[in-house]
């Protein structure tokens, strides 16, 4: 994906958004929030809303680098639509949790997403993994 803001502005944005943990930032043409701790809130009806999946799905331990990020990306794109989130920080925290569980940070993910923009083979791998993991039936 193309980045629309210079790195310095993105960094500033990350710091600003991180400072405003209660606000609903993230979707849209800005960078996702980095290093936001997952949150969990109780709704008006008393239901404990999901902050994130309790444990990231187990992946093939032999995967590394882009191959591992391909699997994480495909499964994240599938799983995110199955959950209701109390706030956007919780949504972003769910991804952060998955990344950190496999030794990746937000910078690694941003680099991977940028590579997806220019590498057809990576997008094909995500499509295949998404299909295998998420397809009905």
């Amino acid at each position, binding site marked *: *994906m*193309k*980045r*629309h803001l210079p790195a310095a502005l993105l960094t500033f944005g990350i710091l600003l958004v991180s400072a405003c943990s209660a*606000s*609903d*930032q*993230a*979707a*849209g*043409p*800005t960078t*996702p929030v980095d290093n936001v701790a997952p949150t969990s809130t109780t*709704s*008006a*009806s*008393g*239901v*404990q*809303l*999901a902050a994130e*999946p*309790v444990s990231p*799905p187990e992946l093939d331990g032999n995967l590394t680098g882009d191959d591992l990020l391909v699997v994480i*990306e*495909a499964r994240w*794109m*599938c*799983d*995110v*639509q*199955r*959950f*209701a*989130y*109390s*706030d*956007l920080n*919780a*949504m972003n925290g769910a991804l952060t949790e998955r990344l950190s569980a496999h030794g990746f940070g937000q910078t690694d993910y941003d680099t991977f*997403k940028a590579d*997806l*923009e*220019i590498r*057809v083979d990576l*997008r*094909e791998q*995500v*499509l*295949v993994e*998404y*299909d295998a993991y*998420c*397809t*009905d*039936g």
Partner: protein
Amino acid sequence: MRTRIILLLAAILMVTTALPAAAAPKPDVDKDVELTNYETAAIVAGDSAWIALNWVGGGGDAENFQLVVKKPDPGVEIRYPDNTGTYTSLWADDMLSDGEYDFTAVHVTVPYSAGSDIKLLFTLTYDHAGKPKTRSFNVRVPVVQYAGGEDLQQVTESLGEVSLGESAWVGVSYAGLAPRLDDFQLTVTDAGGLPIVYPADGSSTSLHHNARLEDGETDVARFRVDAYDVEPGTYTIQILATYRKDATPVELTGSVKLVVVTPTG
């Protein structure tokens, strides 16, 4: 670089993908942008939550990606991320590339009075090959009722129709309300004479993604109905969901309707 294989893969994927429940994707002639989930995660009546709609690009870049909800039902409130304000866009940025997945987040408040699922009409605008495009998508948001103390709730009440003489995989969706429920299994205790088959010819079925249901998660348990040598009509299928809450085994009974219809023509 764009390749034909990406287009083919995306097209095949969209034809075969439907999540999280049994709702089939609507016919869609435009393949440059595809919505993969016409049914979202469930929301409790009286509650509000962020839900995600997942998209995949299928033919060139879709730029300036903007999504809004048109005329929600009374009592249903819609909110978008603060940084976009009057619409929502993709999580990473505002462009969906060919063969790329990304999602949009929308905040939905469901009134306490909501007695059934709500439908949202989304209008999507984007630029494709330099030309503005507008698309509309109907999306179902399952609504569950919270009575207190529940671990999970059955979302699906009707399995729809199956033609006489055919078999069909059907799904019962569940929304998790407790933090973590393990070893989820579903069995049909009484199908009113309808033959039931479980995946891998097993004695029960589990959830599609895994046997764990978490709070805020909606997942579906599937089984096959063989509508051979049965009478047309409406069947009430009794079901039993079992799961483990920490170390405690728990059971939840329920039922779903299924209609066996005589094929026309």
